[in-house]
């Protein structure tokens, strides 16, 4: 079998998934309980998958590192979820969502997968409503919609500013319902630290019990990773503190290709950093750009003034000026670069960090005047409260300050049409795979993708794999299992006993974050990337020499957890820079300064770079494989949002 083949169905786009479904093998209900599936991660993708596989009758074991599956980082998604219901009768369709996603991704995603995603989007809303997800509604009782960045239709469903929370609780409850069934088990406070490979197939995982520090092996017929994204490589990001790459990175080191690691999204509307000891950044939902107007002072002398004292004619509504058609709703990458550009030119506002003001205004005065305070509070109340509790400023009275921050990773484990990685029997869903978003993800599309993967795609493709493969029995005494266990124990020993322990995991994480943010953040440049690769290599050597973990390993030890995650981020950080260096073009969120137009627009190179860059682990240097992207249905165009 060729492990690096997308296995896309052929023929008309509209019938590919249906045709493929028919070709997949099934397992009869009485035989399902003989098959065991391990699901790592119980965010939207993982929880929805466990619920669906569990009710179908498979044996499912799931794991998460939080103290409850209800706390996965999907809980933090604010803005909404897209679906092609066309309830607003504004011309939406499966084809349009497909087109918007491909275009939004700057023509670096696979057509068949994206079309399937658009096709499945409506079912997700039906499923969530049936579970009791309290989406926003009109007075008539019908579901309400809003619009989101990068589109001209209103197709986003939302539950105030807590859409991710409500969708995750729906999936968590569906998963919980299965846990009464003996076939389905779940372990919280458990971290996957290695993938077990037997006969070149994924057959289990090694897990550390985060309370007792116990290391144990878990075997199964196949493994699915739904472990989320790796924005925390940048140290400061909008992700939860525990988000990590460890599961996907272990898989990479066992042979799963890592695709487009440099495709990371910087979100334009986050609360600017205020000091050096900050531990994370907070997102202000993109939905705010529907009604808020973004501006900066025209004159840099005005930057430290009270915004109320800056006259209307002295305000530069720069997104409206630069991109009149989409204005404040320009896609994320474009909006982020515009904000950075304005601040770099000395028009930023807010407190100075390292001599620069990193912030622009997001102003709601016009909409408050138009709709009144109450209507605005109804729509954005919880976001405004959150802003106020973090900054101590009242956005009803004074404009918010925002600045871009790392937020989402389009890159991830390479998967084929069945969402299987290049390792047989290893699947990846949700943000953990390299997914359907190409070089840039549109707002409200990650929740959709995670749930499409978990409820509708993986249950079918995993079953097909189980039906088709003949697997040998593997138990805890298998030499491969014993070896994997030893590998993990050795690594923990190394972390606990560095030759000259000196610096905390936080110290290294901050250093790495700074290197990546400078060299591999909003804009990238060859010389800087090369330098960063060198710096990260040095940091890595330094880390293993000087990492200091106090306490003991057979205990709840958060310092040890962090050390292991940072070690993996350091290695991933290097690959991110290598990927960014390899890609000599700008596309989507990947902005190489050498390939930007005068006005800062990405200059894509379809002739040489219309491929997915999938990296294979090699002990010396990673090896690049290219999946050529063939656009059969959509003609790649210049992504123009003017």
């Amino acid at each position, binding site marked *: 079998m060729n492990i690096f083949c997308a296995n896309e169905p052929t023929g008309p786009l509209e019938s590919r998934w249906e045709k493929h479904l028919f070709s997949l093998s099934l397992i009869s209900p009485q035989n399902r309980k003989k098959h065991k599936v391990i699901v790592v991660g119980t965010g939207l993708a993982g929880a929805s998958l466990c619920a669906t596989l569990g009710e179908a009758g498979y044996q499912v074991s799931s794991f998460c590192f939080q103290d409850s599956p209800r706390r996965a980082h999907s809980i933090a998604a604010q803005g909404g979820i897209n679906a092609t219901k066309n309830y607003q009768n504004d011309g939406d369709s499966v084809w349009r969502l497909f087109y918007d996603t491909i275009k939004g991704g700057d023509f670096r995603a696979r057509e068949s997968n994206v079309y399937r995603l658009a096709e499945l989007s409506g079912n997700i809303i039906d499923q969530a409503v049936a579970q009791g997800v*309290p989406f926003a509604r009109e007075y008539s009782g019908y579901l309400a919609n809003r619009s989101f960045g990068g589109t001209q239709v209103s197709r986003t469903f939302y539950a105030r500013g807590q859409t991710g929370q409500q969708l995750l609780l729906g999936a968590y409850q569906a998963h919980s319902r299965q846990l009464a069934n003996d076939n389905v088990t779940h372990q919280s406070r458990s971290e996957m630290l290695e993938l077990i490979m037997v006969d070149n197939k994924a057959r289990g995982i090694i897990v550390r019990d985060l309370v007792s520090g116990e290391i144990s092996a878990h075997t199964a017929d196949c493994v699915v990773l739904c472990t989320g994204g790796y924005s925390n490589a940048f140290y400061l990001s909008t992700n*939860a503190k525990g988000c990590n790459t460890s599961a996907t990175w272990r898989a990479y080191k066992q042979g799963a290709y890592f695709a487009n690691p440099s495709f990371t999204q910087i979100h334009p509307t986050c609360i600017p950093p205020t000091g050096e000891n900050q531990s994370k950044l907070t997102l202000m939902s993109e939905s705010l750009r529907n009604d808020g107007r973004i501006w900066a002072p025209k004159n840099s002398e005005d930057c430290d003034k009270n915004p109320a004292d800056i006259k209307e004619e002295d305000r530069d509504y720069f997104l409206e000026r630069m991109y009149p058609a989409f204005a404040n709703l320009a896609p994320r990458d474009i909006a982020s670069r515009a904000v950075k550009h304005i601040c770099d030119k000395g028009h930023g506002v807010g407190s100075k960090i390292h001599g620069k003001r990193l912030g622009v205004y997001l102003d709601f005065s016009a909409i408050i005047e138009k709709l009144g305070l109450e209507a605005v509070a109804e729509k954005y109340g919880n976001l405004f409260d959150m802003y106020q509790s973090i900054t101590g400023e009242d956005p009803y009275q004074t404009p918010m300050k925002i600045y871009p921050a790392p937020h989402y990773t389009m890159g991830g484990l390479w998967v084929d049409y069945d969402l299987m990685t290049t390792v047989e029997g290893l699947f990846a869903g949700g943000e953990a795979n390299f997914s359907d978003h190409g070089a840039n993800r549109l707002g409200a599309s990650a929740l959709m993708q995670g749930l499409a993967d978990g409820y509708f795609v993986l249950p079918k493709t995993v079953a097909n794999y189980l039906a088709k493969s003949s697997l040998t029995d593997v138990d805890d005494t298998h030499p491969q299992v014993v070896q994997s266990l030893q590998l993990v124990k050795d690594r923990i020993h190394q972390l606990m006993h560095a030759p000259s322990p000196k610096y905390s995991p936080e110290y290294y994480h901050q250093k790495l974050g700074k290197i990546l943010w400078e060299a591999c953040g909003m804009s990238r440049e060859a010389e800087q990337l090369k330098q960063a690769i060198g710096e990260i290599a040095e940091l890595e050597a330094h880390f293993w020499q000087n990492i200091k973990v106090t306490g003991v390993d057979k205990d709840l*030890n958060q310092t040890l957890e962090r050390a292991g995650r940072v070690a993996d981020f350091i290695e991933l950080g290097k690959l991110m820079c290598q990927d960014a260096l390899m890609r000599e073009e700008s596309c989507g969120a990947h902005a190489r300064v050498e390939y930007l137009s005068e006005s800062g627009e990405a200059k894509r190179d379809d002739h040489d770079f219309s491929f997915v860059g999938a990296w294979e682990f090699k002990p010396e240097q990673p090896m690049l494989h290219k999946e050529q992207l063939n656009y059969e249905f959509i003609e790649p165009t210049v992504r123009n949002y003017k």
Partner: protein
Amino acid sequence: MNFTLHIWRQKNSNIQGEFVTYQIDNIDENTSFLEMLDQLNEQLIAQDQDCIVFDYDCREGICGACSLVINGYPHGDKKATTTCQLYMRDYKNQTELWIEPWRAKAFPVIKDLTVDRSSFDSIIQSGGYVSVHTGSAPEANALLIDKHSADEAFNSATCIGCGACVAVCPNASATLFVAAKITHLSLLPQGKIEEQDRAQKMFNQMESEGFGSCSNHRYCERVCPKGISVSNITKMNQVLGWT
């Protein structure tokens, strides 16, 4: 800013814990409460000591992981706020702060400030859902729901499962948490069909997990970071046929 911190340290559930006093100086007023503890932990690492363990993840008030009792109040004395959303500018300089874990029989301490809240998961597993199969849902707009009910259901569904209501309750009752889920699902037609069975199962599970019962102290409502109101308890009592 400078603070004197009295922090509960406990090696594990079998060993008696105690307060240990630490001094922390030069804290910027925009530092969050948990970032202050991060800085303290960095100091402990520098002194070769085991770090103070506390739960957190999102640090934006939505995951429900953070759980500290500060000067006697779960999530501090600021209204409708989680621990991670507290900032040092809300405290007076040079004050003493007493920091403890949630205390309840059904939330045993794991270590230091971390407790085991898996009893909440068990309560949801006992019935806190609508029994719908994946793929069998009808078209979403086939079921109209009046906006008021949808909004009210949302208000109950916004519970983050943190357990502050239990921590503050003299009976260590989980009634507010249970009532919020029962109310959320009962207010919607999808959840109506199973409502009685659900409510009874969840209530029984709460009792068997070792939570106490409600005797109307109403402290829970005051500390709840999401403003879940005790009217949810009235609704639950109705569903259970107690009123």
